[in-house]
C-alpha cells in the first residue's frame, strides 16, 4: 500500500469516524444519564437520512404511504406516538383529579407535532428549498427521541441495566420494522449539499466532507459548552454522577431523561443527514452505523466523552482500511475489534459488580 492510498483511506476513515463520534457521544450521554444502553441510536440515523430522501424524492412507488400523499411516514409516526404519549399522560393526571393540568400536559406534548403536521399538509414541503427540508427533517426526527423515552423507558427508570437493554432491543425491533413500512426496502442516496472539490496534492477534499468535519466539530464544541456553561447541562452531569443526589437537588430524572434523549435523537438525525449523500441508506442501515458508534462507546467504557470520540475515529479508520484490503469482511473486521477493546478494558478496570 503506497502512502497516497494510505492517506486517502485515512481521510475517508476520519470522515466516517466523525459521524461515528457523534453517535458514540450520544450513546455515552444516554448511558450516563439514564443507564439505558440505547441500541436504536442508529435508527435515528436512518430516519434522518430517509425522511430527507422522502422530502427530496417522494415516497417510493407502490409503498403504503404513496397512497396517502407524499409526506414522509416519520411525520405520521411522530403524530401517532405523540397522541399515545399525551393520552397516557393525560389519563394519569386526570385520575389524580387534576383535569386542567391534564389538558395542559396533553397540549404541550401535542403542540409541536400538530404544528408540523399542519405546516406540511398546508404547504408542499417537497417543493421547499433544500435547507428548509433539512430543518424540517431535524424537526420531525428530534422529537421522536423524548417520545420514545416517554413510552418505553420512563416508567422503567429504576429497572436494572439488563432490563433496560432488553427494552432497547425491543425498541430497535419496532423502529426498524416501522422504517421498512415508511421507506420501503430500496436504498436511497441523497444529493450532496455542496459539490465543491479541493485538491490537496494527491488528496481530494470534497465539500461534503468539509461539511461533515465542520458540523461534527461544531456539535462537539456545542456539547462541551452545554455541559460546562449551562445550568441544564450541569443538571445532566449531576444526574449522571448520582441520580438520587440530583433528585434531591430538584433535578427530575424524567426531565433529564427526556432532555438527553432529545439530544441523542438530534445527533442521530444530523448524522443521517451528513452521511446521506455519501452512502446508500436502507431502512435498516442505521443499525450497523449505530453499532460502530457503540464499539467506540465501549472503548470509552461507556463513560468518557473524549475516549469515545477517539475510539470513533479509530473505528472509522479501521473500517476504511478494511474495506480496501478485504471488502467482503469489512464488517467482520470492524466488529471483531471489540474483542481486543474488551480485553484492554477488562485489564484496565476489572469492575466490581454494582450493588
Amino acid at each position: 500500500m503506497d502512502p497516497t492510498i494510505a492517506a486517502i483511506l485515512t481521510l475517508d476513515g476520519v470522515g466516517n469516524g466523525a459521524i461515528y463520534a457523534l453517535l458514540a457521544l450520544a450513546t455515552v450521554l444516554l448511558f450516563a444519564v439514564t443507564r439505558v444502553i440505547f441500541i436504536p441510536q442508529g435508527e435515528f440515523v436512518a430516519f434522518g437520512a430517509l425522511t430527507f430522501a422522502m422530502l427530496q424524492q417522494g415516497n417510493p412507488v407502490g409503498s403504503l404511504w404513496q397512497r396517502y400523499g407524499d409526506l414522509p411516514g416519520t411525520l405520521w409516526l411522530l403524530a401517532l406516538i405523540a397522541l399515545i404519549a399525551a393520552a397516557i399522560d393525560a389519563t394519569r393526571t386526570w385520575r389524580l383529579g387534576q383535569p386542567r393540568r391534564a389538558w395542559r400536559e396533553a397540549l404541550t406534548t401535542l403542540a409541536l407535532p400538530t404544528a408540523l403536521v399542519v405546516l406540511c399538509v398546508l404547504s408542499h414541503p417537497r417543493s421547499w428549498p433544500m435547507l428548509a427540508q433539512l430543518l424540517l427533517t431535524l424537526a420531525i426526527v428530534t422529537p421522536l427521541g423524548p417520545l420514545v423515552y416517554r413510552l418505553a423507558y420512563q416508567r422503567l427508570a429504576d429497572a436494572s441495566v439488563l432490563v433496560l437493554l432488553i427494552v432497547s432491543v425491543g425498541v430497535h425491533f419496532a423502529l426498524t420494522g416501522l422504517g421498512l413500512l415508511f421507506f420501503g426496502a430500496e436504498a436511497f442516496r441523497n444529493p450532496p449539499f455542496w459539490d465543491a472539490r479541493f485538491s490537496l496534492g494527491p488528496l481530494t477534499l470534497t465539500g461534503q466532507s468539509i461539511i461533515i468535519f465542520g458540523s461534527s466539530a461544531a456539535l462537539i464544541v456545542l456539547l462541551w459548552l452545554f455541559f460546562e456553561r449551562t445550568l441544564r447541562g450541569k443538571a445532566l452531569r449531576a444526574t449522571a454522577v448520582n441520580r438520587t443526589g440530583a433528585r434531591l437537588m430538584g433535578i427530575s430524572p424524567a426531565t433529564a431523561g427526556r432532555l438527553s434523549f432529545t439530544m441523542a435523537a438530534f445527533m442521530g438525525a444530523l448524522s443521517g443527514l451528513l452521511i446521506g449523500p455519501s452512502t446508500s441508506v436502507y431502512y435498516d442501515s442505521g443499525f450497523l452505523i449505530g453499532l460502530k458508534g457503540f464499539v467506540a462507546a465501549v472503548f470509552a467504557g461507556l463513560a468518557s466523552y473524549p475516549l469515545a470520540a477517539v475510539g470513533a475515529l479509530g473505528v472509522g479508520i479501521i473500517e476504511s482500511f478494511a474495506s480496501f484490503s478485504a471488502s467482503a469482511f469489512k464488517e467482520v473486521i470492524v466488529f471483531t475489534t471489540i474483542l481486543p477493546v474488551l480485553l484492554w478494558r477488562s485489564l484496565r478496570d476489572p469492575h466490581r459488580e454494582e450493588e
Partner: protein
Amino acid sequence: MKLAPRRLLTIAIALLVLVLPLLPVPEFWITQLNLIGLYSIVALGLVLLTGVGGLTSFGQAAFVGVGAYSTAVLTTQFALSPWLGLLAGVVITVAIALVLAALTLRMSGHYLPLATIAWGLSLSYTMANVEGLGRYDGLLGIPALHLFGISLHDGRRMYLLIWAVALLAALATQRLLDSRPGRAIRALKGGAAMAEAMGISTYRYKVVIFVCAAVLAAISGWLFAHYQRAVNPTPFGLNRGIEYLFMAVLGGVGQVGGAFVGAGAVKLIEDKLQEWLPLLTGTNGNYEVIVFGVLIVLVLKYAPDGLWPAVSRLLERWLPLARRVIDWAHAARLPERGRPQAGDVLLQVQSVRKEFGGLVAVNDVSFELRAGEIVGLIGPNGAGKSTTFNLLTGTLALTRGSATFAGHTIAGLPARAIARLGVSRTFQHVKLLPEMTVLENVALGAHQRGRRGVLSAMLRTDRDEERRFFAEAQRQLERIGMGAQLHELAGNLPLGPQRLLEIARALCTDPVLLLLDEPAAGLRLQEKQALAAVLRQLKGEGISILLVEHDMDFVMGLTDRIVVMEFGTKLLEGTPAEVQASPAVRAAYLGTEH
C-alpha cells in the same frame, strides 16, 4: 416410591408430547412443533443465563449457527459422521463462549450482551462471505441422522429426537437448579457480595452458565441442520438471536417451563402475524418485528415475569408444590476443620486504613482477637464499623495496613479466599435469596464444603453430598431456633428471622471466626436473649466472634472485650466494664458538657 402429583403431571405431559407423532396429527403441526422444540432448547439456555443468572446474550442464534454449520461442513464436504459434526460444533462453541466470557465477565454485566451483538454480526457476515460455507446460498444435501439403525429422514421421525433432547435438556436444567452449583448460580443475580462471602467464585459460575447456554444452542443447531437438511445464514442472524431472548422473556425468565411456553407463543404469534400483517399493510415484509418490539416493551413493563406465573398459579391451585422430602436424617456429617487453641491470636489487625477519595473512613485502626473470644465493635453512626468489617472480609479493598487471620495474610485477598480460610459473616442489610426456601438459603453456606459440579447435578450423582448439605443446614437452623421454618420462602420471613437465617448460613460454612454485622437489630427481646445464648454456646465450641452492634445491653452482656470507634479512629479498647466507665466513650455517644 410415591410420586408427587405435580411430578406425575409433568411425566404425563412429557409422554403425551413424545407419542404425538404416532397419532394422526397433521404434518403442519408436526413441523410447527419441531421448530418449537428446537427454539425451546435455545430458550432453556437463556432461562439459565438471563432468568436465573441475570446475564444476557443476543448471540445465541450465532451459537445455533456454529452447531448447524459445523455438522453441515463435516458431513457434506468431508463425508464424516453427524456425531463428529455434533462434537465439533460443541467444541467450537465452548471455545468461543470461553473467549467471550473471559473478555467480558470480569466487568459489569452489560459488556457480555454488547460483545455477543458484535460476535453475532461478525459470524453472520462470515457465513455469508466464505466460499467454503456456501455464502448466502448456504450448504445443501446434509444427510439424515440414523439412530439405532432407523433413518430420521422425515419430520415425524425427527420429532422424536428433537423433543427427547428438549425434554432431557429441561430435566437437566431443572436438576442443575436444585443442586450445589445451582444454588450458586441462583445467588448470582442477588449481587455478588453475598455469594463471594460464602466462598463462591461468581465469575466461575457466570462462565459456567454462559457456556451451558451456548452448548444448548449449538445442540439445537445440530438438530436443525439434520432436520432441514440444508443451512443458510438467515436463521442465525442477530434478529433471531433477539427473538430467542424474547422467547425467554415472554415465557418467563427463570422458569424451565417458561422456555417452552415462550418458544411456543412466539412461534404461533409469528405465524399469525405473517398471515395477517401483509393484508393490513398491503405489502410483504418483515413487519412482525414491529409487533414483537412493542410486545417486548409491554411485557417488561407490565408483566416482567412473563406468561409462566399465570400457568404456575393455575398449577398451584390444583396441584400445590410438594415440599422437599426430608431424606437426610441419616446423612453423614460434613467434614469440619480443626479449631485453634483457645487464647491463640486469631485475628490481628494492624493500622488498616480506608480512604474514599478524600474521606478517611477507617483511620489506622489496630486490634487483636484471640481464639474463643467474643469481641464487640461499637461506636456512633458513621464511626467506620461496617467499613472495617468490609475490609476484613475482603468486600472492600483496603488502602493501607495489614490483617492476618490464623497466620495467613488476608489483606488484599478476595472475599471468597478469606471465606475459605474460615471467616464467615452476616450483612448489615440482609442479603438472602427471597425465592429460595430457608433451608436452601442456609445450604448455600455449605458451598465450599462440597465439590460436586454441574455434570454431577444433571446426572443426579450428587444426591449423597446434597443430603449432607441439607442435614447440616437443618442442624444449624435448629440450633438458632428456626427448625420449624425450613420450607418457607426466605423472602416471606420478617426481618428478625432473616437475620437469624444469615447467622445459620454463616455457621454452615464451618467458620472459625464469625463476623456479625448488627445481628440483634430487628429482633424482639426474647429473640435477642435466645441469640445471645446461641452465641455463648458457639463460643463454648471454640468459635470466635467479632460483632458490630448498637444494642448496648446485648453487647455488654455478651462480649469479652470491646473496641470503640469514632470518626474512623479507634477510641478505646477494654472490657465491657472499662468501656462503660470511660468518660471518652460517654462523650463520643452523648457529647460533652461545656
